[in-house]
Each structure stands twice: as C-alpha cells, then as structure tokens.
C-alpha cells in the first residue's frame, strides 16, 4: 500500500482553498438541513411519519439520514466544482458560521416551540 506523502516545511505549497471551502460549506448546510428537518418533523404529523425510516428510532432516523445524505451529496458536488480553484472564502465562511449558529438555535427546544 502506498504511504501518504506529507510535505516537509521547505516543500510547503499553498493549495487552492476550494476543497476546504466545499467541506466547510457542505458541513454547515448539512447541519442546517438536520435542524430544519427536525423542526418541520416536529410541526407536521405528515412529515414526521414520512421521516420514520427505522421504526424503533422513529423520525430521528429519517431526519439524520436525510441530512447526512444532503451533506455528503453536496460535499461531492462542491468538491468536484471547487477543488482545483480558489473561491471567495470570506462570504462562504460567514454563511457557514451563520448556518451552523442557526442549526444550534433551531434544535434548541424553547426556540422550536416559538414556531
């Protein structure tokens, strides 16, 4: 098996930031999707029952499985599009932080109860 090659201090080459940006944004959107699915599942009986992928675990199985699929598919798509180029990381970082913050808030029960 081929061993992974690490760059030494003198060999460091600055890579494009696209791959990192794809990973960050997709993780944030995946987390946000989980929060939204949990919220919608909590408010709608029809959505709740459609999210029961595994009965003993209930709607949590569908919420998490769907969110993970959204995250991974988006990650692959963004990685394919951005891996070889540099992107505007500032707005992407801000959007990712906002989405992650909203994800925490939208899973917090007192906030969920507002809707």
């Amino acid at each position, binding site marked *: 098996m081929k061993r*992974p090659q*690490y*760059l*030494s*201090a003198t060999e*460091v*080459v*600055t*890579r494009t*930031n696209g*791959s*990192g*940006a794809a*990973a*960050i944004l*997709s*993780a944030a959107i*995946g*987390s946000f999707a*989980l*929060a939204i699915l*949990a919220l919608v599942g909590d408010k709608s009986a029809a959505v709740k029952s459609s999210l029961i992928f*595994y009965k*003993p*675990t*209930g709607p*949590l*199985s569908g*919420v*998490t499985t769907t*969110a*993970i699929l959204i*995250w991974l598919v988006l990650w692959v798509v963004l990685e394919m599009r951005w891996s070889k180029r540099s992107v505007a*990381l*500032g707005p992407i*970082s801000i959007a*990712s*932080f906002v989405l*992650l913050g909203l*994800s*925490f808030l939208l*899973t*917090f*029960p*007192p906030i*969920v109860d507002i809707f």
Partner: protein
Amino acid sequence: MEITARSFWTLIHGVGFGAVYLLACSGALVELYRFTTSPAPSEPSAGTQRFLTVYLIAMVVLAWVAVLTGAYIIYPWYRAPLPPGTTSLGMFPQRLLMSSPKTIGWHSFGMEWKEHVAWFAPISITMVAFVFMRYGHDLKHHRRLRAAVLSFAVASFVAAGIAGFLGALINKYAPVQGGQTIQLRAEELK
C-alpha cells in the same frame, strides 16, 4: 456486582465513546491551533502531522460510533412504547420522565435537544479531519480556512458537550435498564 445489558450499552455509548470524544476534543483544539499557527523556525515535522491525522481520524470514528449507538441501540430502548396494562414505568424511561411535571422537562427539553444537537459533532469533526488531511501545515497560509476549521472543532466540542451533559442527567433521572444481567463479579454477603 452486576449490570444489565442495556445499562452496559448506555455506559459504552456515554463513557466509552462520548466522554472519550470530549476528552480528545480539548487535545485536538490545542494541537490544531499549535500546528497551524507555529512560526517557521519550529515548524512541525511530518511525524507530527501524521500523528495529528491519526488522532483526528480516531475522533471521527468515536463521534460517529457515539451517535450511531445512541440513535440505533440506546434510543429505541429509551422511547419504547408502553404495552397496554403496564403499571411499572421503570423499563420505559421516556414514559417515566413524562409521567411527572417535575421530570417531563428532561424529555421535552433535554432529550429533544440532545437527540439532534449531538449530530453536529461528527459532521463538524469529519470536516475538520478532512480539511486537515488535505491541507496540513499549509493551513497556516489560509487564515480564513484555519479559522473555520478551529471554529467547527469548537462547535463539535460544544455539541458533544451538550449531548453528553444532558444524556448523563437524563440517565440519572430515568436510567435505561433491562435486558440480560451481566455478572461482573461474584461476592458473598458477609
């Protein structure tokens, strides 16, 4: 000295995976910060990078195993439906918590938050590990990328901390129990 199979699994989930993950988080945060900001004269070696890569992969595995055992092994026992005619709620933690206004909050607030927020931990740390493996020491040259990686590592720690804290308290008020009894040590009454 004995323990039930369900209590044992809860212990494995909470202490074996969750608590170890939380402990690992503090080390990862310090090492990630140090590794990606170290000045040129003391740049980390390939060995250090390899060590941190393995460390982060172990964290990713721990985080995923923790949420998966929680959701697919422990949680079904926690939320098991009450068979008609059941009088003792001891084997039905969710129902036990919901049976009293003094404890219902542990379910409606505690478990409702824990069961969702916990998943941010593996998602975030998977991203952190990937970006570290892809960029390594080169993160030093990507200030915004580095800031995002460190922030998501903190978010992962916070998510796991919330889930772990609530899980420990919920299990205190309504422990998941039942199943086969595992004898840990045989002792005689004196």
